[in-house]
């Protein structure tokens, strides 16, 4: 078949190397998770502490944005190779999402 996958058996050294790289990647994911928990704690603490609305809203939206970028690029591997088309899909979706929300919060009133 045209789309045959070549089965490549790694040498022991190659195998150890890949395994080590994966373990490193997993440690990176754990660090990402710690950052996400930290950002969430900041967001909830700010609201509980009762700061000014004009201070809280931009900051918690920014924190949410950072958390989503971490999810997409690290947990969902969008930073990996071969994700160019995927980035195009997602950014197009986000662009439409942004326009939709902007429209509904600015031109609709009751």
């Amino acid at each position, binding site marked *: *078949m045209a789309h045959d*996958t070549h089965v*490549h058996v*790694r040498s022991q050294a190659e195998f150890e190397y890949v395994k080590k790289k994966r373990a490193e990647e*997993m440690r990176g994911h754990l660090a990402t998770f710690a950052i996400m928990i930290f950002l*969430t704690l900041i967001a909830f603490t700010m609201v509980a502490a009762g700061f000014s*609305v004009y201070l809280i809203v931009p900051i918690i939206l920014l924190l949410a944005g950072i958390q989503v970028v971490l999810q997409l690029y690290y947990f*969902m591997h969008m930073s990996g190779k*071969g994700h160019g088309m995927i980035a195009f899909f997602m950014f197009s979706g986000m662009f*439409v999402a942004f326009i939709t929300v902007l429209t509904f919060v600015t031109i609709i009133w009751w």
Partner: protein
Amino acid sequence: MDINQKYTPQSWPDHPETATLEGKNKFVGFWLLLAAETVTFASLFATYLALKDKGPSGMEFSAAGLFELPLVFAMTMILLTSSLTSVYAMHHMKNYNFKAMQAWLAITVLLGLTFLGLEIYEFNHYVHIGFGYTNSAFSSAFFTLVGTHGAHVLFGLSWFIALMLRNAKRGLNMYNAPKFYLASLYWHFIDVVWVFIFTVVYLMGVIG
């Protein structure tokens, strides 16, 4: 290549999810779905923001008086942790460790079920105090947005459970590796949506 070809950790490819043409096609198609889902949720968020605290005059429920942060905080932590456990599952999938992957997926499913249970408790509580779906434009928009997310959680859980049961005896191969990978992508996407729900609906709701 036979789709049921047996592998060893040494011969298992670096990216089993995109090692076959079928896997590649699923991968691209699934991300296209996620981009479309982004737009779906954007329309629900936009509707919610436009209708927040809106309804018939004399309506007694508003976001500031309704939402309780401790429950939302617990739900957020549970869903965020389940995102990490599915990362662990995919880590073991790439290491060709089927049992460890199944175990982490089982933990993910348990956390997801806990999240869903808390959401059902929350909705039940709202309906009980009179804040039902038809109470106001606000209540309809709220239940539609958060309920659609909850339906996605339910679907994601069913997907994980179906994959785990169906492949329990088969082990990992090129046939099911893309399936597990995509289910975990879906689970991360559910967490992405929840990040905006807890920020935009609950946190921004509580501060008025």
